[in-house]
């Protein structure tokens, strides 16, 4: 058995499942946002900020944000193990990806809650 401590969940099955679940969340979120924009052509600032004031929307958005982090981590980890053969470079790339995703999540939380 091949062990990889830098993969997301250390188990292939777990990573695979998280990849699918996060993809599903992102698909539903994207469809919702596009549909919302199409159904509200003359969208005002009040309406838009009112949408994101709702707790349910914040939960949905945070879920989507975490999904972006998880999905891109698993995807980029997979790509880096395919194409970057030098261990040092690969580890640097993976650390960079992890850092960027962490920043996006914290920043996203700030934006959503207007902190």
């Amino acid at each position, binding site marked *: *058995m091949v*062990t990889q401590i830098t993969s997301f969940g250390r*188990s*292939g*099955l777990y*990573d695979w499942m998280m990849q699918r679940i996060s993809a599903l969340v992102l698909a539903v979120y994207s469809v919702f946002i596009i549909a919302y924009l199409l159904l509200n052509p003359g969208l005002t600032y009040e309406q838009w900020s009112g949408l994101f004031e709702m707790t349910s929307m914040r939960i949905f958005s945070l879920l989507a944000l975490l999904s972006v982090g998880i999905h891109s981590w698993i995807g980029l980890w*997979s790509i880096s193990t395919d194409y970057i053969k030098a261990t040092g470079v690969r580890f640097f790339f993976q650390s960079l990806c992890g850092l960027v995703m962490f920043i996006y999540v914290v920043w996203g939380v700030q934006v959503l809650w207007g902190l």
Partner: protein
Amino acid sequence: MLVSIYRYNPEKDDAPYMQDFEIELPAGKDLMVLDVLNLLKAQDPSISYRRSCREGVCGSDGMNMSGKNGLACITPVSAAAKNNKLVLRPLPGLPVVRDLVVDMGQFYKQYEKIKPFLINDTPAPAIERLQSPEEREKLDGLYECILCACCSTACPSFWWNPDKFIGPSGLLQAYRFLADSRDTATQERLGDLDDPFSVFRCHGIMNCVNVCPKGLNPTKAIGNIRTMLIQRAT
């Protein structure tokens, strides 16, 4: 017809090169690619390739014919040639020993990993372990694999990680033993496959299904292994 063959003799050549041969094929007959190679070998005995049964059973002459992996002995020239030109290369992704002969070591190592034999701890019966026709049916489409390596060497995941990803051929065989009613090591076998590489490097692009000379479906077998892993884990 123009036949372009990948040539490399590590004892003489610095780098591999393509050598072109012009050959007159007998009219009114659709030769197999292996027949063409045999005709060329009569012209130039230094051309090297593996072949044995010449009827698609032994799996020795797997090679890349005009971009697609297959067995030279059962691929008609009419199917492999494009614009009256036939390009023959060794199976991609494996080290070349000479010309069209590749080192299959890495491929066999992955096959060995999946323990390709029945494991059964229960006392052996007097004659043999019986299977019902239904249980036997589950092995159809799995046991026919001849280990020619056409599928695994058509798989990009196997090209990038030949040491960690088992590859379509090995996984088809892994499922062959997982599906066998006479095997009792199912849990151990699944435990050995639940890492990020062995099974899950398969992204389902189905190159393996596209090239398999025996018409088998490794992607489906991999899907079945995944289902078994999910059932075991949830």
